[in-house]
């Protein structure tokens, strides 16, 4: 019986190959009465007649959050012609719209000097921070905050209006709802980028002397954290043209509310409705994977309660927090200020914030993985070669969460520094990129390159059958998000997950299909998430110690002998993923 089936199968295949082509095979299958809805890719788009546009500029800023804003403004003020493109809207995409606290280091008001501040951050970060970037952030934070104040940033809970002010005043062109998928390199220098518009059905090429990635971080489109539009696009694009990236082993350990997990607005009380405010020096060692460790040992529910209520679950062992930064008789990380999860580095709730809604866990329980796939802010991203936000590729800069600056280290240290750091780094990168442009005469994207990239961008639309990005994403989430894979790590499980992810990489990425521009964006995002997952797993396997937000059950101790290093990732000659160690507080060689 079985043999007969096999025989039939064989003859069917034979018939298909004889008939030639996928269309015929589909026809054959449907003739046999097989349901085909899953496979038929009915694109409502005539892929062959899509418009192709090419635009030239000096500095191309990709992303329109806090880093992008300052990158565009400062590059313009330094004399460059600037064009900003964004996947979403100015001031309303990425994590910026949800960051409500910004650190401003005012030397007049603080007890700590600038250098003392850097030293203290470094102590909390167990050496993982980059002192140059920590200092730079604090040093320039007040100046950026003052500019933001002038633009009306602190007057509204929504940032589009205040962000538009300096952009409109300077007449900087902003193109919104453009998904950039490729960075373009010619003669070892960056010469631009390419992507598509989701509204106009257009493939777009940007010829630029310099590109600043302000593309933010990313995750696996987790539930409960507003990062479903962030998929490490900048990091993966840069990796694909040979840039070094770092920081994939770290984790942001934000919890979510167990009731209506996906509702990130509700999980944050009414914080999204608040106007932003500034924070002063307050250094912590927060929001690593402590809670994940507790949950791993005790299971759900994980209690969070008001200070002193004794409602928190406690276990021994787990991630190490330096004694100086232990918070006794306090809520677990994620519990201060009325118990809602602090925005960690990304601002933290406004100090003494008023009008807080129901915080997650107050009398209820919390779940993990709400920001799954994301590292500590600014610990992951492009490797900088200096303190000017310059990447390993000439002309390519990054700022904010797209830059692996290790400004805060591999754990959340200074409250509100993430938003401040994005502003500061945006400004630094903008000026540096404008300066770089002055020495570049002309650039050109070759026609052959454009053809090749256009082909890659539109590939998912041209597939007659394949896998939907939604399904592949869901599968990836199932592989990566469990606590025992991404947070509480051990080698055999990391390797097991890697086997799955490699299957998605090799077999599913080429078969991602899209039937419209919305799905085309999802297809490219999914691809980036898969590569990012591979990076995360491999980096996690490699770092055989526990430090800050990276916790290995099989290597629970700090290993200062071998691991006072950052892990860099790059594409080797043979297109495989390569790793290198870079000692803390050095620049790459």
């Amino acid at each position, binding site marked *: 019986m079985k043999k007969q089936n096999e025989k039939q199968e064989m003859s069917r295949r034979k018939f298909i190959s004889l008939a030639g082509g996928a269309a015929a095979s589909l026809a054959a299958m449907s003739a046999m009465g097989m349901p085909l809805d899953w496979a038929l890719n009915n694109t409502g788009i005539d892929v062959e007649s899509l418009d192709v546009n090419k635009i030239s500029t000096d500095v191309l800023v990709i992303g329109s959050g806090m880093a992008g804003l300052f990158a565009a403004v400062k590059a313009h003020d330094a004399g460059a012609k600037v064009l900003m493109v964004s996947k979403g809207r100015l001031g309303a995409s990425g994590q910026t719209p949800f960051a409500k606290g910004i650190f401003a280091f005012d030397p007049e008001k603080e007890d700590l000097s600038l250098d003392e501040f850097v030293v203290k951050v470094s102590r909390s970060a167990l050496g993982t921070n980059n002192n140059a970037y920590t200092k730079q952030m604090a040093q320039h934070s007040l100046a950026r905050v003052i500019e933001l104040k002038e633009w009306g940033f602190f007057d509204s809970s929504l940032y589009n209006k205040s962000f538009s002010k300096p952009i409109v005043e300077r007449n900087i062109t902003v193109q919104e709802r453009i998904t950039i998928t490729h960075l373009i390199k010619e003669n070892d220098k960056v010469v631009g980028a390419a992507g598509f518009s989701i509204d106009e059905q257009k493939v777009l090429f940007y010829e630029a002397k310099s590109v600043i990635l302000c593309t933010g971080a990313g995750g696996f489109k987790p539930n409960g954290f507003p990062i479903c539009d962030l998929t490490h696009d900048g990091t993966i694009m840069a990796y694909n043209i040979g840039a070094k990236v770092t920081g994939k082993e770290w984790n942001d350990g934000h919890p979510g509310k167990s009731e*209506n997990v*996906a509702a990130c607005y509700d999980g944050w009380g009414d914080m999204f409705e608040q106007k932003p405010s500034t924070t002063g020096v307050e250094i912590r060692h927060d929001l690593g994977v402590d809670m994940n460790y507790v949950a791993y040992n005790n299971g759900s529910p994980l209690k969070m309660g008001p200070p002193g209520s004794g409602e928190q679950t406690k276990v021994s062992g787990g991630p190490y927090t330096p004694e100086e930064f232990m918070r006794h008789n306090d809520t677990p990380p994620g519990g201060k200020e009325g118990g809602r999860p602090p925005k960690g580095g990304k601002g933290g709730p406004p100090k003494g914030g008023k009008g807080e809604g129901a915080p997650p866990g107050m009398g209820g329980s919390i779940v993990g993985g709400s920001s799954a796939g994301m590292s500590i802010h600014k610990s992951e991203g492009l490797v900088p070669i200096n303190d000017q936000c310059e990447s390993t590729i000439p002309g390519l800069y990054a700022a904010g969460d797209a830059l692996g600056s290790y400004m805060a280290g591999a754990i959340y240290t200074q409250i509100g520094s993430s938003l401040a750091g994005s502003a500061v780094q945006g400004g630094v990168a903008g000026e540096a990129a404008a300066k770089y442009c002055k020495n570049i005469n002309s650039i050109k994207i070759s026609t052959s390159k454009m053809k090749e990239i256009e082909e890659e961008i539109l590939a998912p639309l041209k597939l007659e059958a394949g896998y939907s990005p939604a399904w592949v994403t869901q599968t990836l989430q199932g592989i990566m998000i469990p606590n025992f894979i991404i947070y509480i790590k051990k080698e055999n499980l990391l390797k097991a997950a890697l086997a799955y992810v490699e299957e998605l990489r090799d077999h599913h990425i080429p078969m991602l299909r899209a039937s419209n521009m919305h799905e085309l964006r999802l297809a490219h995002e999914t691809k980036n998430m898969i590569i990012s997952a591979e990076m995360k797993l491999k980096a996690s396997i490699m770092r055989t110690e526990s430090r800050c937000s990276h916790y290995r059950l099989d290597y629970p101790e700090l290993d200062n002998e071998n691991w006072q290093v950052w892990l860099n990732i790059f594409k080797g000659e043979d297109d495989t993923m390569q790793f290198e160690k870079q000692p803390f507080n050095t620049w790459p060689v």
Partner: protein
Amino acid sequence: MSIKSINGCIGCEECIKSCPTDVIRLNPDSKKAEILYPEDCQICHLCRMYCPVDAITISPEKTIPVIVSWG
């Protein structure tokens, strides 16, 4: 069901522009915003907050997609 309904839309496109995940689109015939990809809604409420006429209703619940072997 995440983003639930839009009532009294004037077609200003504020929500469409401010949705980070491209859930809402302008209906070319009625010239009004319609919820096209609710499965991608991250329940962040930006659309509702940007709407000048307070037209958008969002619920905290989200239906989780059914697990299948391929899709």
